[in-house]
């Protein structure tokens, strides 16, 4: 059962990781994108941190919804609607009473795939969400699972997002969105799963 406290800790930890790795994410987005994924995410997570500052007594739905709105209105680009939709779906599910992490993430992934139209293997953040979700369901989420999933985007040919314009030349680069989702789940591991 996911709590408000856990979720706020999770998202603050995620925000810190994104801030620390802003330049790295921009760099990853340069050869196969437009070099802004780090900047976009920092803008969004700064807003998330700010909106969560006074939510420690709020319910889970409020926390997810505030996170979604901050991401939607601040990130822009492709990542904004994707991460935003993911949290909006979790807000909707939690409103319906869901508190199980696995179910929440499954709902999020469904929304995310619908929003972006990406399938597994398209070299997007979906390629991290999918194996992480499987691991969460099996109660086996480890940092190795996350790292492996992120690394696996490297040899893939991008089929969605800006990297797809490169065709075969997208091979050999990590997908920036996969890397930022890697931080999301590492933060989850550090604050929720391991605790």
């Amino acid at each position, binding site marked *: 059962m996911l709590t408000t406290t856990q979720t706020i800790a999770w998202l603050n930890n995620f925000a810190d990781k994104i801030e620390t790795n802003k330049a790295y994410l921009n760099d990853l987005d340069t050869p196969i994108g437009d070099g802004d994924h780090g900047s976009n995410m920092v803008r969004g997570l700064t807003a998330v941190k700010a909106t969560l500052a006074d939510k420690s007594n709020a319910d889970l739905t409020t926390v997810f919804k505030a996170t979604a709105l901050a991401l*939607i209105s601040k990130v822009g680009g*492709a990542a904004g609607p994707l991460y935003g939709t993911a949290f909006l779906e979790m807000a909707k599910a939690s409103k319906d009473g869901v508190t199980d992490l696995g179910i929440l993430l499954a709902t999020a992934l469904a929304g995310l795939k619908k929003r972006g139209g990406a399938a597994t293997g398209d070299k997007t953040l979906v390629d991290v969400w999918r194996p992480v979700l499987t691991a969460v369901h099996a109660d086996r989420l480890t940092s190795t699972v996350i790292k492996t999933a992120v690394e696996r985007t490297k040899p893939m040919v991008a089929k969605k997002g800006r990297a797809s314009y490169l065709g075969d030349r997208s091979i050999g680069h990590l997908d920036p969105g996969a890397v930022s989702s890697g931080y999301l789940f590492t933060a989850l591991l550090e604050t929720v799963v391991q605790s």
Partner: protein
Amino acid sequence: MKKILNDPKDVVSEMVDGLVRAYPQYLTQLPDTTAMVRSDQASMVGKVGLVSGGGSGHEPSHAGFVGKGMLSAAVAGQVFTSPTPDQIYAAIKAVDQGKGVFLIIKNYSGDVMNFDMAKDMAELDDIDVKSVVVDDDIAVEDSLYTQGRRGVAGTVLMHKVLGAAADQGASLDELDRLAHAVLPQIKTIAVALSAATVPEVGKPGFELADDEIEYGVGIHSEPGYRREKIKPSKALVAELLGKLDESGHLDSQHQYAVLVNGMGATPLMEQYVFSHDLLDALAEKGIKPAFMKVGNYMTSIEMAGISLTLFDLTDAKWLDYLNYPVETIAW
């Protein structure tokens, strides 16, 4: 990076502020947004609203085309980053006159998703919203399995045609049909001499040697299809026109509109020389453009280079739309 800026983080808000204060007769900024709507409210009454937008860095697109006879509003995202749904939604609400709102979106994941979310939001308010996703850049091969082609300079011609039709009272459905009839007839291809530097990134999107150029780059420094030594203007025209010819046979029986578009740092001098070679090459194919424009319309910050757009005017009315008078900053 050497630029006339303050804090790179503030570039979009300061730019929008400078723009709307310099041109209050054309643009009004919606409070707490970077959405700019047409100041001439009267000219919008009873008509379908036309909203465009995208990442910043393409100036004068898109706000430069807001005004009577063209766009009703433009929404500016962060540099090279789609605007967010809340901002687009605000623009939609501001321009809706009960006749619906038509969105002109460029085909990037980010733009498509953010505009879609805004559409969802507007539809909850019972505003009719339709849209077209412009994908004129033939450098990228289209395919069912990928994102498809990018939207680039041809978008400006889409603004113009739809703007004229909307001003003449076309309904939302009529605009939708018009947009989708025009869409496959607009094709663009570019060549870059240098890349753009996003202020917050601080270094160019790619590096080209002092004597290198790249064909097929996008408007956000997306890589193109070939890199080689710089060639004379005549040879660049031959390459770009060849690609356009491949992608849809140029026919001397057709009427074409031509847009020679500077990417930002390339002076008009070079654009006019390129136009000279282009007009020669077209003349050899028996084509004399029915309409032509040369200048910086869809830029990529300070990228050097040119894009070439051909618009096959399969419907004679489209030429009238292109020539229809407008009141904007940049058309």
